[in-house]
């Protein structure tokens, strides 16, 4: 057997799985986005119309889609830096030699990641409750009037961002912690001998050494945050005034609530394009930063 044939044979099972469970559904989804497949077409295939690019044009002219896109970008733009910042901050604290019981805190801070969102959402809904919630109680002590967190279109998304950040930051924290532990101690010793302050050590050593990890975490978090769905689904059902409808939530409603699979697939294709583009930008930026990080490490 030629080596090449053997190689194909070895990757064939993986290719088959990828083909059946990824490539074919994606192609089928793209094909659906060119039709107006819906409940009527399910009843009788004669009710299926080929729409060409009409779905795309319709979607781009739908105010709710733009609103959903805006809400999603708001969530990504505010949520990703906040989440990564919190992860990095808590990882640095836990890694610090001054931290007591790091194992205990690591477990506590990681706990939200493994809890069920639906159960957590019940608790958070109580926290955000307008008249009896703890958040407003604390704000009230500080003299801030009651905020209708989940009922006011201006505060609903910030509330969702807080919940998502709290729920997710522990995961990245553990990744950062592992990366911090991989930085050789002798670099810091050398820096200290040179008289570098703690701040300088952080900016000149820790952050550059973490750059590849930061890029990885950035890409993963952004890809995850673009797919915002469960939080608004359990907390606000997209309201108030559609202020927490994300692209994925929009897709879910079109597809599984109203059975307009044509439009839903179109939204999926557009979301895919958007995520692909933004991930590519980050990956490019990270690759540009890579060699310098290695230099700093050398």
């Amino acid at each position, binding site marked *: 057997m030629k080596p090449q044939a053997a190689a194909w044979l070895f990757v064939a099972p993986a290719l088959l799985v990828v083909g059946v469970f990824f490539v074919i559904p994606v192609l089928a989804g793209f094909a659906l986005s060119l039709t107006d497949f819906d409940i009527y077409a399910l009843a*009788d295939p004669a009710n299926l119309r080929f729409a060409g690019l009409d779905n795309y044009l319709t979607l781009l002219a739908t105010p709710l889609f733009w609103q959903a896109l805006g809400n999603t970008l708001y969530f990504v733009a505010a949520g990703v830096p906040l989440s990564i910042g919190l992860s990095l901050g808590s990882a640095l604290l836990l890694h610090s030699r001054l931290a007591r019981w790091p194992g205990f805190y690591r477990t506590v801070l990681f706990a939200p990641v493994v809890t069920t969102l639906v159960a957590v959402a019940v608790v958070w809904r109580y926290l955000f409750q307008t008249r009896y919630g703890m958040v407003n109680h604390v704000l009230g002590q500080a003299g801030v009037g009651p905020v209708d967190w*989940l009922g006011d279109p201006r505060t609903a998304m910030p509330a969702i961002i807080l919940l998502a950040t709290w729920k997710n930051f522990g995961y990245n924290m553990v990744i950062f912690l592992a990366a911090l532990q991989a930085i050789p101690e002798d670099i810091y010793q050398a820096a200290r001998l040179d008289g570098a302050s703690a701040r300088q050590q952080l900016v000149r050593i820790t952050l550059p050494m973490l750059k590849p990890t930061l890029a990885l975490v950035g890409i993963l978090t952004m890809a995850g945050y673009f797919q915002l769905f469960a939080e608004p689904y359990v907390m*606000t059902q997209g*309201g108030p005034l559609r202020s927490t409808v994300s692209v994925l939530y929009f897709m879910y409603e079109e597809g599984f609530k109203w059975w307009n699979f044509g439009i839903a697939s179109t939204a999926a294709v557009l979301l895919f394009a958007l995520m692909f583009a933004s991930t590519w930008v980050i990956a490019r930026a990270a690759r540009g930063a890579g060699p310098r990080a290695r230099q700093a490490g050398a």
Partner: protein
Amino acid sequence: MPRSLAHACRRLCCLGAGILLLGACTPQAAPPETLRFWAMGREGEALAQLMQEFERTHPGIRIEIQQIPWTAAHEKLLTAFAAGTLPDLCQLGNTWIPEFAALNALEPLDARIDASAAIATGDYFPGIWDTNVIDGRLLGIPWYVDTRVLFYRSDLLKRAGIPAPPRTWPEWARALGAVKRAAGADAYAILLPLDEFEPLLALGLQQPGDLLGDSGRRGRFSAPGFRAALGFYAGMFRNGWAPANRAGAISSVWAEFARGYFAFYISGPWNIAEFKRRMPAELRNDWMTAPLPGPHGPGASIAGGASLVMFRPSRHARAAWSVVEYLSTAATQARFHELTGDLPPRRSAWREPALAGDPYARAFREQLERARAAPKVPEWERIAGEMQLAAEQVVAGRTDIAQATAALDRRVDAILEKRRWMLDRKAGR
């Protein structure tokens, strides 16, 4: 080769004869006919009890009940339709009937009802019955009903100088104003959660004319009728009578009702049992139900509930129909009410003492005579959501009623585009 084939044949024949002989040996001729019956939520549990009694009186029929949670029901039914595994018999929310009618999945029941001795059409509340008639064909039999009435705190009304619940919109507005004045800044006159479309829909149905025009081809929300309804609805917020809250902002409707946070609440039959159980003892006689006020006198309300439908093709249609008839007798319906608290769709079932003697049910009995079906198109649920969003925008002050209803009509027309195309194509053929 031919020899072995003949051999195989002979063996097969022997086997066949053996099976036949075996069949001849068993005493009864026909095995019991098995029906598959899907039911949702609490009704599914009660059904299991009712069906035990049915099986005792109908030894030839066995019922296989599957309980489906409401939240998963719609998806499961559509998936079953696509896979061709729908049950013989099913409980179906009556707003879903138009959708399954569009799928051509429902067995028409007109001929069976004409021949039936057990089910008397005239005994049913007309508005509820009407939800089951799509394009002139009867596709379901009402099983239990759901409409919305006013729940109110009689003591708070009295404190505000209102002796009796309002019957008209002007009376209602007066009562709301008086209750709010008496309640002060921290309480309200009425609770209308901004993410529930039912109260506004009920007000809209009280108006003459339909919400969709041209046999469900276009929205008619900018007609004067709906605009008046939306105006009255939004006015309750603008005047400060209702808090501009979504349902999530109220942690417990019962606790807040008892506390006097609001005096009026538009809700359905399930809340009779809930309020009976949850109102504190000292307030036991301080709440009551009343039919919805209308623009000029007692008004209409929504015709909700669930129906019994038969999916087709079913090989057990005759047996399924006998189950429908059994569940539709006044006696079974009264028993069903005992088990679930669901209200029966037949007037004669309301004569049973459990219902006739319940003062809280009286308003529902009166309201059901004036229940009115929402537009019967598959897209209705989505349109109702859009309607409520328009109302929420008006209440938030983002737009006015004329603009909001015009924009709503445009959105509804876009949603109904496919339906128009199909109806026009059918008419052209």
